[in-house]
């Protein structure tokens, strides 16, 4: 449907005196003017309300300098909560898989262990036998 044609009425080039179509339910300037069926206008999504002062957010980062300020009896890497083979350590995917197998491999489910071994084999061949850096 020609929405523009429904809405605009030109006076043949001359000036127009008076309202275009008097007695309209919706003014011509709104996006609903001239449309025969109801049209849902979407609004931008509202921001979700985030509480910036929860316990976790207010005390984030506390004890990060426990080593420097506390006589080096404790290292901040011991504060990290996470999988045992990743606490205070960083590596690429192959290194992570190998470390997981060394530290946790005998506790894993059988099929997970087999998938891990398969992945290590694939990554080893990929990194050490293909590409420019081998």
């Amino acid at each position: 449907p020609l929405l523009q044609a429904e809405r605009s009425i030109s006076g043949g080039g001359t000036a127009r005196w008076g309202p275009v179509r008097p007695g309209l339910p919706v003014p011509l300037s709104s996006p609903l003017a001239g449309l025969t069926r109801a049209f849902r206008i979407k609004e931008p999504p509202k921001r979700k309300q985030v509480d910036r002062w929860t316990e976790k957010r207010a005390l984030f980062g506390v004890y990060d300098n426990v080593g420097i300020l506390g006589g080096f009896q404790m290292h901040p890497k011991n504060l990290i909560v996470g999988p045992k083979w990743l606490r205070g350590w960083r590596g690429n995917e192959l290194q992570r898989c190998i470390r997981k197998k060394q530290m946790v491999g005998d506790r894993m489910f059988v099929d997970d262990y087999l998938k891990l071994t398969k992945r290590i084999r694939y990554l080893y061949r990929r990194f050490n036998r293909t590409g420019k850096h081998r």
Partner: protein
Amino acid sequence: MLRAGGPRVAAVAAGSSITSAVSSVTSAVSAALRGRARAGAAGVSSGPAAPAGTPAVTGTRTVPLSPVSPVSPVSPILRPCAVPVPCHRSPVQAWVESLRHHDDEFRGLTDLHPDVFAVRPRLDILHTVAMWQKNYKRISYAKVKTRAEVRGGGRKPWRQKGTGRARHGSIRSPLWRGGGISHGPRGPTSYYYMLPMKIRVLGLKVALTVKLMQDDLHIVDNLEIPTSDPQYLLDLARYRHWGRSVLIVDVNEIPEKISTAVAELKTINLIPALGLNVHSMLKHETLVVTLDTVTFLEKTLLWHDTRYSALYPFSMPYSDFP
């Protein structure tokens, strides 16, 4: 003459040592106390009770602040620097306040070591340390299955030639709907790294300097408050224009009243001195520190300027440290 407005006092021109300024400080402090007492007695009926419309005050009731100003003319607290200051630099000075009464703002003066509280304002180091604090603990648990891990897909779906369709080897290749992801996140990933110790120490020093120089650092003699009502602390912070959030740091054991008061508040937090860090200092608008904490911080942070590098980890005993 010393200005009785902000917490930071312009260095006395006569000399850096605090002993030379005793008489002027005493007269200034007593003049300030007398001025406060007169103002307090005159305008106490209106009082600093927060109006109902402010968003910072939680709850509509206000604890009536005592009409009698407790600032009795005791000798002011004058604390010299714990660690000797190099001769080419002079210490920075700050007012010592007290939390016992809302008016108790000028208890004395303290010297602060310039190599901790007046270092160059390195914003890049603040950024580095803040980003380190955010990321070194991060472990991302995102993981997707590759084509080898997705269930199924061992058989060739149709023969290589003859059907007019494209050639495929398995129904779980990344081209297929429901297939594995070739380069997705793999397993729990850690983003751990450590910055050099001296950079983390310098980050603390820069943060303390910035807080002092922007009038957001308040030094308190101890953390005793008259009531364990959280509203008292809110009114105190409002009266003294501390801002929306306050971080209180102490070395010694924390008295019960203030810990119960702070436990119920969200934006006023209390941490031991071991927990001081750049992120918390930047998150809270004001930093309130006790005199013992200042001594502790000066000693701990200045040691790194003149130490030897570690031949073995510092956690093992050294003959001269601590």
